[in-house]
């Protein structure tokens, strides 16, 4: 029932850029959307449905494509909602959620460096956990754990 409500409200705002809301245990559902409607989906979810607390952003490398995940929480509904978009592996980019949820800033920096998903219009997209100048994206499936990589780490600018 909860996911029906979410689907109706978001669908009315973004039309066919909403791909569907699947049931997900003990959450308001898993909302799939087309990446070109990202900002409108975020804004609708925050302002019309009250999911004002962004908990995390993450990425999954499915080899054929990449999936970007957002987990948001609403205090009034006491529920989580999972947002998910599929991005092509050769051009994995999506609009940054940081204008809507400032909390996204660090999570997107992490997702960019680990899963190689580009966040457009991010205020400060630079390395967070890995050294500056590190060219690999460790959480891609093509990054093998048992093969040593040769790398030259540049000094961080101070």
């Amino acid at each position, binding site marked *: 029932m909860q996911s029906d409500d979410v689907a109706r409200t978001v669908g009315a705002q973004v039309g066919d850029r909403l791909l569907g809301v699947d049931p997900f245990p003990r959450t308001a559902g898993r909302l799939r959307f087309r990446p070109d409607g990202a900002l409108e989906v975020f804004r609708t979810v925050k302002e019309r449905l009250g999911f004002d607390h962004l908990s995390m952003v993450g990425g999954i490398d499915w080899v054929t494509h990449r999936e970007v995940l957002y987990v948001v929480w609403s205090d009034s509904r006491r529920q989580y909602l999972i947002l998910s978009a599929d991005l092509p592996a050769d051009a994995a980019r999506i609009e940054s959620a940081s204008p809507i949820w*400032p909390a996204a800033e660090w999570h997107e920096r992490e997702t960019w460096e680990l899963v190689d998903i580009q966040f457009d219009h991010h205020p400060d997209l630079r390395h967070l956990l890995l050294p500056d100048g590190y060219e690999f994206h460790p959480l891609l499936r093509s990054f093998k754990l048992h093969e040593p990589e040769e790398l030259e780490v540049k000094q961080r600018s101070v």
Partner: protein
Amino acid sequence: MWINMGPQHPMTHGLWNLRVKIDGEIITDCDPEMGYLHRGIEKISEDRHYNEVVTLMDRTCYVAGFAWEHLYILAAEEALHIAPPERAEYLRTMCDEFQRIGSHLMWYAAFVQDIGLMSPFLYGMRDRDLVLDLFQSYTGARMTYEYMRVGGVRNDLPPGFTGRARKVLDWLSDRFVEYDRLCLGSDIFRKRCDGLGVLSAADCIATGVTGPMLRSAGVKRDVRRDRPYASYAQLDFDVAVADGADVTARYLVRMEEMRQSVRLLRQVLDWLDRHPGPVLADRLPRWLGAPYAPVGKEDYVLKRNYPKGVGFSSVEEPHGEAQAYVVNEGSEHPYRVKFRSPVFANLSAARHYLIGYRVADIPPIMGSVDICVGEVDR
């Protein structure tokens, strides 16, 4: 002028670097620099069996190992469609709450030392050791327990444990009164903490801050109450909140949380005394590496045809709200494991609670955030 506080600095409590821009004594900008402790735990998890990841979870946050084990196990069980027996859920709740006391005592010891009070540090560490002794008596370890398993926990409690645990709780309840007298009664403490590091409720929500920092701003939010896991739905407790959103308010919230943990633990210990039973689900697939699983041909079939699934869990960790997302693609390894660390989000809001204060205010403010670098960097 930019100055580096860290990676080796008495304030940091772990390897990280707080770069602050100062104008005289006033902080005008800051930029936490993380990654010194990045071990790639999410990547290593993809190469391990489900139960082997538990070993990594202890090391993700080394002062709250049980909370992270619990977090991962909840998501993994959802992804693998396995349910634990009820006694195991109560045992996990007990682990979580003792861990909360242990972690908050560690925070108390480190925080008051940052402010300049030495004896509370010794008292905090002394009392934390009693909790670690209890952990040692049923897991064999004081920090890295490897106790929880997919489908339950590794072993039951030794005889006489609940009696010993109650004695520790009685001792701790009396000590909390002394702690308050030592800190809240001290002018030095109040002058260094009152009105510092204020982060309003609206800023907390915008920047994703959770846990004691959010509750100190008056927001009554706790995963244990809002989305109960394990056996919290059957237990009685209050969510600790405070007004003021400053360093003192965070102190008050953590102290009240420890009292509530004692209250929860008394109920859990009573339940455990009355309800003996199995602590690990039977008929677990053998490839999970479960010690008591029946050996048989059907396990091989099960592994080949194991249903896929996705698990999402959230846990009220001592530092705030932790989340895990586990993807099971029908093999013995998780396909992807993603964690949300509460300290990661609390630290990302540093600009909001540091700018405008003085350099000498940094140790009490950052101390009140309760930073564990292991879980930020993962």
